């Protein structure tokens, strides 16, 4: 009950208790049981504080103070949304565009796939289905994850994607999450992506917020289930504006011989981005590849918590997260890998590299490996450094100005991540965003720690 006094907490508790009984009875018993349990967890613990180990360096208190509206506000002017969509469209990428406004699919702005075997629907339409009951919440944890618990207790809608057995989706999906708010608003969208055995899908999520000053707090939960041999490629581009706070929890469950690729790029501007990415390798021969690039500036905070759980033998996980920190920004990287006793012949690699450019920038990097099996190959590492002065001098000695040279070095640093994107137009789109958000390198010389 640590933050029972916060306005948002009180509002949520009241809303749950006062919700119309019809809503509760409409749902399947398994979902309402789950909601009830999650709600109790949330009611007991409240929002996390810096006393919680997982939130030691990410203080939510300043982001919970606003008088958030928890009922979804009216949609903004569609023309503003269209402008936002235009800005976020990936040039030259032939993809179905699925637009969610404030966490709900807007059919008038979307082009849903017409392919046989590929379904995209509002989540609210499937919560009664057996498929939903079977897949939702399979590995998602709510105990000890207050945001995931709150989302589970309260979610109303979001995105449902299903790719049937053996179907390789011909065109990728570009999912645009747009948020509009004239007053402070709190959103809790919920998404479920299911790939049946040997199905394949590429999708990219972009997040954008309509201009304005109002605080927007988004608490997203995404669950991805990959059956035997399924392959899911998932790109995430998080861009925002001042006042925007993004909290996300992604749970990926992988059956045998499945493959999951994730590239997450977090651009500056949003006040706070906290990503919780958890992958459960729940079948032998499965593999996941997680890449991240985060670029906080000014007073912003970007926190990436990842967890890869190796349960079975012969699985592989690769993870590389890189950060460029400017101004007085802060970043957190916390990467956990569990290798359980049965998970022999595991390959698990994890690396986190940071470039500290602002003289007040701060990064907390914590790679963690917990290994209970004895025949495994695992490594992890972390670096925090500055520009290599020799590289900078080399570029300048060829006539390239200091600012431009620094910009080139930052891009080179990030290239390790952007190069992981297999689609050329998406890669170009990401690089364009990186360039637009290119660091204002007004750094002074700080004693360097380690050169990268």
């Amino acid at each position, binding site marked *: 009950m640590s933050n029972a006094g916060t306005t948002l907490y009180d509002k949520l508790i009241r809303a749950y208790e006062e919700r119309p009984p019809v809503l509760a009875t409409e749902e399947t018993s398994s979902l309402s049981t789950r909601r009830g349990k999650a709600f109790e967890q949330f009611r007991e613990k409240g929002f996390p504080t810096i006393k919680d180990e997982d939130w030691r360096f990410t203080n939510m208190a300043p982001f919970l103070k606003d008088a958030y509206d928890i009922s979804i506000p009216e949609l903004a002017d569609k023309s503003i949304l269209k402008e936002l969509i235009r800005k976020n469209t990936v040039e030259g990428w032939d993809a179905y565009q699925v637009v969610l406004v404030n966490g709900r699919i807007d059919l008038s702005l979307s082009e849903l796939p017409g392919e046989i075997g590929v379904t995209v629907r509002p989540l609210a339409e499937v919560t009664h289905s057996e498929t939903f009951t079977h897949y939702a919440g399979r590995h998602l944890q709510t105990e000890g994850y207050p945001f995931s618990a709150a989302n589970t207790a309260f979610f109303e809608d979001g995105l449902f994607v299903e790719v049937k057995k053996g179907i390789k989706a011909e065109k990728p999906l570009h999912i645009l999450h747009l948020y509009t708010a004239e007053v402070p608003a709190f959103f809790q969208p919920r998404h479920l992506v299911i790939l049946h055995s040997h199905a394949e899908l590429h999708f990219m999520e972009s997040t954008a917020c309509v201009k304005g000053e109002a605080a927007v707090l988004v608490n997203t939960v995404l669950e991805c289930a990959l059956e035997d041999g399924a392959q899911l490629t998932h790109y995430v581009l998080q861009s925002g504006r001042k006042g925007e706070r993004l909290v996300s929890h992604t749970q990926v469950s992988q059956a045998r011989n499945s493959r999951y690729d994730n590239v997450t790029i977090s651009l500056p501007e949003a006040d706070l981005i906290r990503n919780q990415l958890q992958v459960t390798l729940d079948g032998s021969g499965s593999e996941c590849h997680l890449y991240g690039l985060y670029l906080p500036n000014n007073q912003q905070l970007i926190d990436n918590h990842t967890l890869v759980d190796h349960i079975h033998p012969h699985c592989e996980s690769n993870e590389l997260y890189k950060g460029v920190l400017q101004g007085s920004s802060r970043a957190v990287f916390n990467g956990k890998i569990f290798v359980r006793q049965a998970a022999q012949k595991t390959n698990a690699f994890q690396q986190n590299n940071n470039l500290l450019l602002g003289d007040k920038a701060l990064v907390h990097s914590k790679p963690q490996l917990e290994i209970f099996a004895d025949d495994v190959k695992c490594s992890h590492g972390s670096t925090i450094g500055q520009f290599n002065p020799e590289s900078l001098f080399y570029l300048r*000695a060829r006539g390239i100005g200091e600012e431009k040279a620094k910009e080139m070095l930052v891009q080179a640093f990030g290239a390790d991540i952007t190069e992981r994107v297999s689609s050329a137009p998406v890669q170009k789109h990401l690089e364009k965003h990186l360039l637009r958000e290119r660091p204002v390198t007004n750094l002074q010389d700080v004693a360097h720690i380690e050169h990268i």
Partner: protein
Amino acid sequence: MLSIRNLHAEVEEKKILKGINLQVNAGEVHAIMGPNGSGKSSLASVLSGRDSYRVTNGQVLLDGKDLLDMSPEVRAREGVFLAFQYPVEIPGVSNINFLKTAVSEIRAHRGLPPLEAREFLRLSKERQALVEFDAGLVNRSLNEGFSGGEKKRNEIFQLAMLEPRLAILDETDSGLDIDALRIVSGAVNKLRSADNAFIIITHYQRLLEYIVPDFVHVLYDGRIVRSGTKELALELEEKGYDWLKETMQENATAQQIVI
């Protein structure tokens, strides 16, 4: 073109250059030789503007302009080029984009528009041929995974692209096999003109068989102790640097006696 007067410099409080005087005119090739630690590479670093060096006294003028007052990039744009002894590897920066940026910045400084893509490509192909530089390397990340010889050839390829007025080659011959040495020297000889000048820093006389210098200077303990023509290099090769050190010490002793 370049005039160095009484140049003193130190690095981390340690005096490295103790009064260098050197005049380099357009069309000339100067070789600077000397034992390890004599200050040869330090001179190259000071001229190109490496910031770990502090100039404590003296003056360097490039075509009458105060070189020491300029940032490294401005020196490069004004026509100074340093071929690095140890070219750095920069993963993620493509060789060709890097060169394109460098060429554009130098041209902009001279009030010229950027080269058209096609013209740049033509120039790049032509200059690659000059140093027999593998086209595959041009599109790779800057020096990443290059062999020692490939890195040195890349330096000369850049030199050929940027067409500096004053090129300083810092031990470009070290780590080169005889074939690479011939290619690099051949390129330098083709690039020599009445308008540019070269300062060639080398430990061995070998390179000077291929690039024949107009003048040879011997650097010892931060000073030029001898200057002469190409025959001086041969004499050094024959007698070794110990000979030089002995004569220097004799002189020093003689001076002390006089005092």
